[in-house]
């Protein structure tokens, strides 16, 4: 049996629904000032690709992966990067405690930082994080756990 697949909503709807998350994600990865340029670049890239989307699934994860790529590009361009605000909220049970991570002032390598932020800040699946990082789900999982180990070592 065929299942009807919803087509993407008007870009306006998508933008209103995701812009706050995207800005929060970029601020965590880049800091407040650089996040603004990255915000514009993220949604312009999304707009460019939006006309070719065939369904409306995982749009939030999709745009957060774009934001991550934009942030990684930006970080490669500009170094060093101050790190303090990596994770801000409390985590559900079984995950690294945000309070523990939030106090850290050390810098993670960009890929590990992105993996940690997307996994624990945004609850993205490793598949999506792998896509964002241009690698695999397994590589994303390894980057996230390496990041967490590194953070733990510095406490």
């Amino acid at each position, binding site marked *: 049996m065929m299942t009807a697949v919803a087509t993407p909503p008007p870009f306006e709807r998508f933008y209103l629904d995701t812009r706050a998350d995207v800005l929060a994600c970029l601020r965590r990865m880049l800091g407040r000032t650089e996040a603004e340029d990255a915000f*514009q670049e993220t949604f312009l890239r999304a707009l460019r690709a939006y*006309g070719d989307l065939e369904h409306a699934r995982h749009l939030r994860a999709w745009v957060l992966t774009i934001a991550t790529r934009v942030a990684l590009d930006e970080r490669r361009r500009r170094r060093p990067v101050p790190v303090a605000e990596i994770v801000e909220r409390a985590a559900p049970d079984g995950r690294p405690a945000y309070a523990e991570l939030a106090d850290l002032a050390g810098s993670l390598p960009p890929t590990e930082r992105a993996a940690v932020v997307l996994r624990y800040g945004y609850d993205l699946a490793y598949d999506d994080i792998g896509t964002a990082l241009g690698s695999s789900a397994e590589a994303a999982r390894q980057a996230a756990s390496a990041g967490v180990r590194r953070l733990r070592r510095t406490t």
Partner: protein
Amino acid sequence: VTVPADLDRRFRDAAAASGLLDVAFDLHDSPVGPLLVAATPRGLCRIGFDPEPEREAERLAHDLGARVLRSPNPLAPARRQLDEYFESSRRDFDLPVDLAGVAAFQRAVLEELRLVPYGATATYGELATRIGRPGASRAVGGALNRNPVAIVVPCHRIVGASGSLTGYAGGLERKRTLLDLEGGYAQLDV
């Protein structure tokens, strides 16, 4: 996190400048109520009386492509000319209109309709005759009722054979206001 208004505005401007939008839209206050005004890169594609942008954005996305965004800059000329029209300092609109999403018969009706001048009226039957389809006045009425670009494509200038206002997608009150503004309705013998 709240997206600052200036950051939001900068993105909406950049999106329009990028040429990537299928449709830009904005809301515009007028004496006949809030208007939703929308344009493709080829011209004006919507002036509607439904002030609910969400609903209209859905329709625009369905008809013209999903990249629909509220973005004021591309609509600035249309909004300015609408203001001038309502201030009676403009009689003709100098704006490209994009009827690409409209079926052939309706497009023929709407293009003929654009030739009905400010301050004048014509009947459904007259319009049918002018497009070479005498007797198709009911179909002409249907085409006008679905006019996507109200006011600029002046379906308010079409009246019943007796001179009565008959129908208007935006409601008869608006039709009367527009005709009064143009001074055309007062001449009608109703």
